């Protein structure tokens, strides 16, 4: 029971990170029907920005307060990653809009290769460890053999994820920008006839996706304490799995899918074998796509002639 509780806590933490990345996939898929293959690498780029900002603040400016440092890291990673993704969309995807089906996907695969290798060349191929932070734990359940603990960083990840998801939900549901975005998702041509700047809305979708991926990137840095240029691919595919599991195109679905994937991965590692945890995640992707391709909250696709 204690093990179960502990794994539940770990799983929700990991799941929040996946959920944040998954929103980027699901929004882009919803609005332009494209699997943004480079999104996992955008996440990796944001984790690097976080590491660099973290070092800048702690070693150069000597700021001691970890809360201030993380706050600035979060904001700068969100802003810079948004600019990255905006530029990527402008350069690699926008000219291909309305082109044939595979062109944006190939372009995105190329972008993904480019991004991970750009970071490798620019920052070196080694892992980047940062000093561990927020390591104190609160013991929730005490028992003779196994203490169930929650660390400050896990609490922080939960809190930041919850606050930002609420803010994001508000943005999509209650503001005119969110309305424009949902309108474009339903029918791009009709939305543009009604005076919505479709290009701008799509750009903003990419920016929002990148900002949430950047939150995940900062959390990833805090949680694992080490970042590498190759860290984009596997979390990216898992987050895509989460988006598909939750029903692609559905925002709450992405979060639920992320939590489920995180929980499955953690429980699999705890109760079966850690070697095959990625196999478990990928198998779920395959099983979900085969047996319920519309996901948990998605709408079934209607086949039109």
């Amino acid at each position, binding site marked *: 029971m204690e093990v179960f509780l502990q794994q539940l806590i770990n799983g929700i933490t990991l799941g929040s990170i996946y959920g944040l990345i998954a929103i980027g996939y699901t929004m882009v898929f919803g609005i332009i029907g494209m699997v943004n293959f480079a999104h996992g690498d955008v996440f990796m780029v944001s984790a690097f920005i976080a590491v660099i900002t973290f070092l800048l603040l702690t070693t150069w400016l000597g700021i001691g307060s970890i809360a201030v440092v993380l706050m600035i890291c979060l904001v700068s990673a969100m802003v810079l990653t948004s600019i990255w993704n905006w530029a990527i969309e402008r350069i690699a995807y926008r000219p291909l809009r309305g082109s044939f089906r595979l062109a944006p996907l*190939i372009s995105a695969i190329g972008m993904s290769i480019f991004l991970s290798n750009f970071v490798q060349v620019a920052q070196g191929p080694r892992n980047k460890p940062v*000093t561990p932070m927020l390591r104190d734990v609160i013991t929730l359940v005490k028992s003779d053999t196994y203490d169930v603990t929650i660390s400050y960083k896990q609490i922080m990840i939960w809190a930041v994820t919850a606050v930002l998801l609420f803010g994001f939900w508000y943005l999509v549901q209650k503001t005119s920008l969110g309305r424009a975005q949902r309108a474009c998702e339903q029918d791009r041509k009709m939305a543009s006839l009604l005076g919505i700047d479709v290009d701008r809305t799509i750009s903003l979708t990419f920016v929002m996706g990148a900002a949430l991926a950047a939150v995940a990137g900062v959390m990833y840095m805090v949680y694992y304490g080490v970042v590498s240029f190759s860290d984009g691919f596997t979390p990216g595919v898992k987050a895509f799995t989460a988006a598909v599991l939750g029903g692609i195109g559905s925002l709450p679905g992405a979060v639920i899918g992320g939590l489920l994937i995180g929980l499955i991965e953690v429980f699999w590692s705890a109760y079966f074998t850690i070697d095959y945890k990625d*196999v478990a995640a990928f198998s779920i992707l395959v099983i979900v796509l*085969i047996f319920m391709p519309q996901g948990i909250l998605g709408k079934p696709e209607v086949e039109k002639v």
Partner: protein
Amino acid sequence: MANPVSAAAPSLDYGRIAREALVTGLVATAILGPFIGLITVQNMDHQLILETRWPLLAALIAVIVGVRVFFSLFVWNRAVKIKKVAPARVPFKIERFAAPFFLGLLFCYPIFVLAGLGAGGSIKWIDNFGIQILIYIMLGWGLNIVVGLAGLLDLGYVAFYAVGAYSYALLAKNFGLSFWVLLPLAGILASFWGIILGFPVLRLRGDYLAIVTLAFGEIIRLILINWVDFSNGYAGISGIPRPTLFGIPFNATDKGFAAVFGLEFSPIYRTIFLYYLILALALLTAWVTVRLRHLPIGRAWEALREDEIACRSLGINTTTTKLTAFATGAMFAGFAGSFFAARQGFISPESFTFMESANILAIVVLGGMGSLWGVVIAAVALVGGFELMREMDFLKMVFGQDFDPTQYRTLLFGAAMVAIMLWKPRGLISTREPTAFLKVSKSVSGSHVSEGHG
């Protein structure tokens, strides 16, 4: 457009150009600043510290802004030409002359290289360029059956390549079977896996199919890594038996190729033998593809690619059609895989990453889907260019001694994929020759054909 004559004689709006250049510069600074201007390095105590590279950052930003201004001034500002939509016509039959010429070139290539560089210097050129490119051409042609003809986007093609390679490696090492027995067997095993994996996923369409095949490819790779008893994990399998020429091995013993034919021993003979072996295998793939396109099944594939619903309503069994495409493509990957294992003598899961699948897919799509010639051009350009980067030592003189061109290979590869897509979204060769026609053959420009949801 505000100015009605701007289409004919554009005037330069210097204010706008300056503004755009400024925005470009700011975006470039924001993007590159943290990555180029600052670098994280580990000091003696294994702690990360930051170092600066401001001159490099400034140079890169200047280049980016310069390119942007150049484009604003000279490229984007040109009068908008109204593209004439030429009626589709049969182009000059380049194939009639190109095919024999190209084949002749391929057959003579090792001889030319040998004559030019001698036995010692030519191994690298035959092996790295000839054999390497031919493997990718073969894989490209194999994947072309799945993606180009049947329109099924497969991102896990490398899984079948791995199945072929591991079948050969394990069966040859453990049971001592010969390459010539195992080559067809590896193909059969790979196509068997193609059917097993294909069966559940073929109800899916488009991007979903792509992601599921990607997941399958990763699952196979992860199993190869983790199931150490079976595949020896990360360490891989070494000492795989090399292929023989009808029982004559290519080694320095008395029974070796060189001794039997009374020649001086040299590793070049095996390289040349392998070259002709992969050439034969690749040509087999091309020949089968060309022939299949004239059979009902090949036409069903192409019909499926264009419109799946129409295909179904015409009574084509889409499941069998897709499965045969999957299995046929997988079979050629299996052949290529067993050749790869036999050529390297060593295989490990490292050779079968997603990156490899992406390379092969890039070759097919960049070449122009369904076009055999496109695959050849793209494979030569991408793989050959990739290998050529190794040879560019003169760049060291430009950028200094510690400049290593090989580390930029993958970077440029990714950028090239994006650039070719932007320049020619349908690939380099995008016209299609219909295999079935009434009275006279009319080639169809790629832009006239819409893609089905395969």
